[in-house]
């Protein structure tokens, strides 16, 4: 058919044991004349090569802002960002605009919740994938189109050849999301950022896209950060989980351990209030109150006002994210190592 087939696996420049992405003490605040929103307040985490990290949180927890900071997608105007985002050791936050442009798509790429707004409606899927490839690599148009075709096959779009010439509106929601994954993988990125990519999809389509992402991650050795508000979705795909609340990571560790014995009272409350098959006939146990107001930087545990275990010291200082065993961390002074908090 053709001489060389496209190898979609990431191009690794410096193969090493170092995490592909290290976020250090990231702070993001949005400043306007009326008010300041402290959206992210000291987030640090590592993303290992070939790892799928789930970033779980409710609206306003700072999960999407964290994700966008990694690709420098936040508007420069009125956004104050500090900290470090080390991609293969290079700080993304200090890159020049042209380096940022080169990084996007080829090293780090992103898929969004709403594929219909992420694609340009006046170009075909094939044109948009080709444009991206040609922008980043010195290849002919014919070679780019051949690669676009292979990418659509990779994400299992049926009759891929015809689909290349479809406009986004001619595809169903699930198909568009597959096409967006193909676009995101077109320049062999090392890190894929997924911002609620299945939230807008129907249940029977969501599971297909989740399984596709999990398979691609395994086959290609991708490193993925998967942002979601849905514990069930996170459970299907993540190997490790970071739970966010009020712009901070409050708990992190291997997925199964967190689901089975959450240590932070917020994670415990979230799991207890999530409805599952056994809930029927029982009274739900919601977390009382509402999510925090982010108009001030945190001066105490952000969850303390809603926490049933809060004691005076919780209101005195911001708790550290402290280790509980070798792989788990929780930002709670009352969390205990061996058993879940009382």
């Amino acid at each position, binding site marked *: 058919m053709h001489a060389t087939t496209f190898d979609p696996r990431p191009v690794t420049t410096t193969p090493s044991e170092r995490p592909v992405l290290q976020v250090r003490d990231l702070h993001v605040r949005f400043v306007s004349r009326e008010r300041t929103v402290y959206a992210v307040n000291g987030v640090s985490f590592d993303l290992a090569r070939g790892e799928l990290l789930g970033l779980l949180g409710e609206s306003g927890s700072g999960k999407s802002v964290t994700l966008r900071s990694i690709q420098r997608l936040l508007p420069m105007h009125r956004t104050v960002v500090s900290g470090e985002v080390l991609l293969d050791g290079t700080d993304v936050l200090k890159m020049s605009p042209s380096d940022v442009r080169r990084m996007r798509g080829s090293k780090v790429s992103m898929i969004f919740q709403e594929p219909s707004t992420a694609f340009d409606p006046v170009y075909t899927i094939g044109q948009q994938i080709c444009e991206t490839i040609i922008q980043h690599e010195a290849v002919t148009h014919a070679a780019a189109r051949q690669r676009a075709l292979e990418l659509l096959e990779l994400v299992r779009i049926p009759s891929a050849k015809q689909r290349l010439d479809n406009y986004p509106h001619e595809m169903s929601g699930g198909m568009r999301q597959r096409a967006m994954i193909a676009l995101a993988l077109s320049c062999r990125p090392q890190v894929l950022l997924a911002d609620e990519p299945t939230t807008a999809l*129907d249940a*029977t389509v*969501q599971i297909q896209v*989740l*399984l596709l992402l999990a398979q691609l991650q395994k086959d290609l050795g991708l490193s993925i950060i998967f942002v979601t508000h849905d*514990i*069930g979705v996170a459970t299907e795909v993540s190997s490790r989980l970071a739970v966010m609340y009020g712009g901070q990571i409050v708990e992190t560790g291997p*997925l199964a351990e967190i689901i089975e014995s959450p240590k932070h009272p917020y994670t415990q409350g979230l799991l207890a209030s999530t*409805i599952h098959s056994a809930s029927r006939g029982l009274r739900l146990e919601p977390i009382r109150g509402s999510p925090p107001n982010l108009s001030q930087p945190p001066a105490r545990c952000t969850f303390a006002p809603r926490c049933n275990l809060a004691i005076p010291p919780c209101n005195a200082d911001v708790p550290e994210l402290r280790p509980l065993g070798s792989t788990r961390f929780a930002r709670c002074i009352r969390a205990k190592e061996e058993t879940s908090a009382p």
Partner: protein
Amino acid sequence: MKQDRSDDVGGPRQPLLIVKDLRKHFVRKKGLLARNASPPVRAVDGISFSVTKGTTLGIVGESGCGKSTVARLLIRLLDPDAGEIIYDGQLVGSPRGISVRELRSRVQMVFQDSYASLNPRLPIEESIAFGPTADGVPAAEANARAIELLGKVGLDPRIFVHRYPHELSGGQRQRVNIARALALHPRLLILDEAVSALDKSVEAQVLNLLTDLKAQYGLTYLFISHDLNVVRYISDQVMVMYLGEIVEIGPVAEIYDAPAHPYTQALLKSQPSMDPHHRTKEAPISGDPPNPISPPPGCRFHTRCPLAQPICSREVPPLRPVGSDGRLAACHLATSSPAVAA
């Protein structure tokens, strides 16, 4: 606790709502160049069901299945093309039954978007009192009712009564919408994705509230959601829709435990597993739901059904009894003992 309803006409055994052969096709605007009118969107295509007093009927299905159109037809935000709606034994819109205006004081609705469904320029007290005032209740009495209802939905009237919608959180606004819906003393509340936009921790609070209000006011609910776990939690009966038709309807526990229709089976199996050790290995069905403009002939699910036989593409399966639990399913292959197809 349960209020005696002086407005009960038909007695306890009369279903509060009977829907017969309801149909709504949306005619699309003729394009400039089109010679013939384009085919209509067959949003709701001849559905019949009834709702027993004091129970909750859950409606589930994917986008485009017609579940929200059903809600809008019932409250006559849309006029049906065909079919009858019988409220407590009285035919709606008939001289010997009840008028649409009378129906609307007995049936109220809560929408998904809590912000869009409140007037941003009215304090919430006035939003709640608006319906009763328009219905002829003196202003002082309507305001007193608004204050009482605010208390009932868990918002302290002293704090909230003069606030505007933008000053409230999503969960608080949805409580206001519930209070507004209750202000006319309805007997049937239609909840169209009413908790879908809320965070999990807040969703549980609102579901507990709905359970309490139902007992206190002797309400009947029609609960529309794409979230199968929430529907299982709150419903007595469940109705599964696919492309404008009912594919299965019956008691919630029986259907969730042993779905008879292959679509119900696929929908339930598509839910994230919530168990990190038993993740979903394979998507139960492939592809997206077809377009309701030109639904497949015969059984509308046959294009995605793993069990489809030649008869399925030729003949429309009738909704017929399956098993002995009062359940109906529209499948040629479903026999009297459910879940043989599983």
